[in-house]
C-alpha cells in the first residue's frame, strides 16, 4: 500500500446529503435500500432511547446519562457494520450502540442506574463492558483481536471512542500495537467536537483525527457522522479489510454532541446556542427520512410503525427503571475474585451480622445522586 493511500480524504465521505439527496462516490457504494430502512428504524429507536434516558435522569431513576442525541447514525452504524460473531467495545456514551446490538435497554443502563457496574451478559451479546476511563478499552479490543487471530478465528473487533480519548496515551498505544501486530480491529472515533467542555482545537493540532492513522502505518478515513449510509459504507469497508487480513484501520466520524455532556454539565458556559442550532439542520434522522421518502421506500404509515416500536421500547425502559431491583448485599463480595479470601469472608460476616441485627436494611437501596457527576 502506498503511503498516500493511508491518508484520509480532505473532506468527509458522504453518500446522502443534508437534503436527502444521494451523492455519488467513486469508492463507496450506497448501502441497499433494505439496509437503509433498517438503519432508519434504528435511528428512530436510538433517538427515542436517548430522550427517554434523559427523562429518567430528571425523574431520579438514572444517576446520570451521557446522551448520544444527534450521534445516532454513528451508534446504529457501529452496531450494523459488524457481524453477529464480531465484538463491539463501547464507551459510556455508546448505550444506543449497545442496545442496537440486542442488549435490553434496562440491562444496558444498569451502570447508570446504580445497581451494578455492568448489567449485561457480555459474551451472549459480544459486547464488552462499557468503559468510563478514556481509551483504555481500545487496548482491550486489540488484545481481544490478537487472541482471535492467535486461534485462527475471523472475528473482527470494532472499538469505539470519542475525540477526547485520542489525546490519551492508551489511544496511541492501541493504534501502535494494532498496526505492529496487524490485528483485525477497526477504531471508530466519534468526533463530536467536545470532551466535556474542551473543544477539538484543544485536543489536537492535526488536520483531522483520521490523519493520525498514517503515523501508525494504517489507513484512516473521515466520514460524515450524521450520514448513516456513509458510516455504514466506510465502516463496512474497514471491517471487510480487517476480516480479510488487511489489518487495522481508523475511521473518524464528524458529528456533534447536541446536548450537554451529561445532566451535570452546563454547556452554555463553553458554546454558543447558534453553534448547536446549526447542527439541527444536519440531523441524521431528518436526512435519511427525506432520502427514503423520496425514493418511495418509506411512507407515513411505516414511519408511524417505527415510531410506535420505539415508543414500546421507551415504555419498557420506564417500566424497568421505575422498578427497584432486589439487591443482594453479598454481591459486594461475590465476584471480586473467583475464590473468596478469608478476609472477604470475615467482612461479609461482619456486614451480614449488621443486617441481621437490623442496623442496616437488607432491602432498601440508597437514593442516587443526580447532579455533580461527570
Amino acid at each position: 500500500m502506498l503511503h498516500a493511500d493511508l491518508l484520509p480524504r480532505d473532506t468527509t465521505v458522504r453518500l446522502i446529503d443534508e437534503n436527502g439527496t444521494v451523492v455519488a462516490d467513486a469508492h463507496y457504494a450506497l448501502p441497499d435500500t433494505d439496509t437503509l430502512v433498517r438503519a432508519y428504524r434504528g435511528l428512530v429507536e436510538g433517538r427515542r432511547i436517548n430522550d427517554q434516558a434523559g427523562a429518567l435522569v430528571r425523574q431520579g431513576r438514572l444517576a446520570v446519562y451521557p446522551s448520544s442525541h444527534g450521534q445516532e447514525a454513528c451508534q446504529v452504524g457501529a452496531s450494523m457494520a459488524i457481524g453477529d460473531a464480531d465484538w463491539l467495545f463501547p464507551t459510556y456514551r455508546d448505550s444506543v450502540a449497545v442496545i442496537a446490538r440486542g442488549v435490553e435497554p434496562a440491562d444496558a443502563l444498569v451502570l447508570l442506574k446504580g445497581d451494578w457496574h455492568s448489567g449485561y451478559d457480555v459474551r451472549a451479546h459480544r459486547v464488552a463492558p462499557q468503559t468510563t476511563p478514556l481509551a483504555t478499552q481500545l487496548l482491550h479490543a486489540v488484545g481481544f483481536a490478537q487472541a482471535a487471530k492467535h486461534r485462527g478465528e475471523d472475528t473482527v473487533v470494532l472499538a469505539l471512542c470519542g475525540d477526547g480519548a485520542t489525546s490519551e496515551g492508551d489511544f496511541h498505544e492501541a493504534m501502535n500495537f494494532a498496526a505492529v501486530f496487524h490485528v483485525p480491529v477497526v477504531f471508530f472515533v466519534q468526533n463530536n467536537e467536545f470532551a466535556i467542555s474542551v473543544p477539538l482545537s484543544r485536543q489536537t493540532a492535526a488536520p483531522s483525527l483520521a490523519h493520525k492513522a498514517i503515523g501508525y502505518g494504517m489507513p484512516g478515513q473521515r466520514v460524515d457522522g450524521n450520514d448513516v449510509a456513509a458510516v455504514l459504507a466506510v465502516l463496512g469497508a474497514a471491517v471487510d479489510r480487517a476480516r480479510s487480513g488487511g489489518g487495522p484501520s481508523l475511521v473518524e466520524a464528524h458529528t456533534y454532541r447536541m446536548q450537554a455532556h451529561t445532566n451535570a454539565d452546563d454547556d452554555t458556559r463553553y458554546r454558543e446556542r447558534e453553534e448547536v442550532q446549526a447542527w439541527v439542520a444536519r440531523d441524521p434522522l431528518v436526512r435519511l427520512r427525506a432520502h427514503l421518502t423520496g425514493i418511495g421506500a418509506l411512507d407515513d404509515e411505516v414511519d408511524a410503525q417505527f415510531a410506535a416500536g420505539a415508543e414500546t421500547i421507551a415504555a419498557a425502559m420506564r417500566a424497568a427503571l421505575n422498578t427497584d431491583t432486589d439487591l443482594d448485599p453479598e454481591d459486594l463480595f461475590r465476584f471480586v475474585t473467583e475464590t473468596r479470601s478469608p478476609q472477604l469472608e470475615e467482612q461479609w460476616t461482619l456486614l451480614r451480622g449488621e443486617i441481621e441485627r437490623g442496623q442496616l436494611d437488607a432491602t432498601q437501596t440508597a437514593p442516587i445522586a443526580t447532579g455533580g457527576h461527570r
Partner: protein
Amino acid sequence: MTIAHDDIRLTDRSEREVATLSMAAALNLALADAIEHDPDVVVFGEDVGALGGVFRITDGLTARFGEDRCFDTPLAESGIVGTAVGMAMNGMRPVVELQFDAFALPAFEQVVSHVAKLGNRTRGGMRMPMVIRIPFGGGIGGVEHHCDSSEAYYAHTPGLTVVSPSTPQDAYSLLRAAIASPDPVIFLEPKKLYWTKGEVDTTVTAALGSARIARDGTDVTLLAYGASVALALEVADAAAAEGRSVQVVDVRSLSPFDDATVTAAVRSTGRAVVIAEAPGYASVASEIQARVFERCFEFLAAPVRKVTGFDVPYAPPKLEHWYLPDVDRVLDAIDTLHWDEDA
C-alpha cells in the same frame, strides 16, 4: 487457611524432576512448563524474545516455542497490560513482564481500573486469568527507578492477588500456581535473589494466599517477604549465636494474607518484627503489624516492631546500604522487645 490452586496438576512430566537451580532458572522453567502444559498461555513484554529478558527469565522461550507463545512488544507498559486484558477477555492466559518496578507505573491505570475490576464488574462473566511479573526491590546497585518496592499499591487494590517468592522452589511453584489461577496475579520477583540457588522439585506446589515457615524458632518471629526473607534468615543465624531462637515466616502472599499461619506463629513466640524494604509509612509492613496486633495482642510480650526502608525515595546505589534494613538494624529491633521482663 489457603486459597486453593494447589491441587492443579502442575506438570505433564511423567516423573518428578529435581534439580538445583537459581531463582531465575526456576522462573524460566516454570514459564516453559506452563507454555508447554497449556496452549492458552502466552508470554510477552519488552525484550523477552531474542534477548530473553533483561534478567534472562524468558531465555530460550521464543526459540523453543515460537513467536506465537513468547514475543516482544512495542515499548509501552500500558499497551502490554491493556492488550493482556483483551486476551484474557478472549480466553487466553497472558503472562507479561514489566521490566522494573517503576517502569510498571504507566500500566497502573490498566492494572487498577481493569485487571483488578473486570471480573467483578462483569459479575464473574469475564475473569482475568493473567500474571504480571515485575522484578522487585533493591539491593543490586541499580540506578533510579530500578529498585522501588511498589507492593503496597497492588496489595491495596481489591481483586489482585499479590505474591513474592523468596526461594527457587517457591519461584517455580508460585509462578505455576499464579498462571493457573483464574484471578489476576501481581508476581513480584526479588531481583536480589535472582541468582541464589536452591533445590527445585517440579511436583511441589505452593498455594497462593499461603505463608511458609522458613525456619523454626521459639523466642521471636520475624515476618518477611521477598529479599527480606534472606535477611531474616541471616538475622536468625546471628541471633542464634547470641542465644536467641528466631522463627522466620515467609509471608509470601501479600494479598490475600495468610492470617492463620502468621497468627499461630506469632502466638507461639509472643514477639514479632516485620521486615520489608519498602518505605514503612502506609505500607504492607504496617498492615502486617496491625493484623498481628489485632489477633495476637494478649499473647504478646512486647509491641510488634517493624524494620523497613526509610520514608524517602529509593536511595541512589552508593547510599543504598544506609537505606536498606540490615542484620544489625533487625537485631537492634529484636533487642527492644522487653526481654528483661521475662527474667
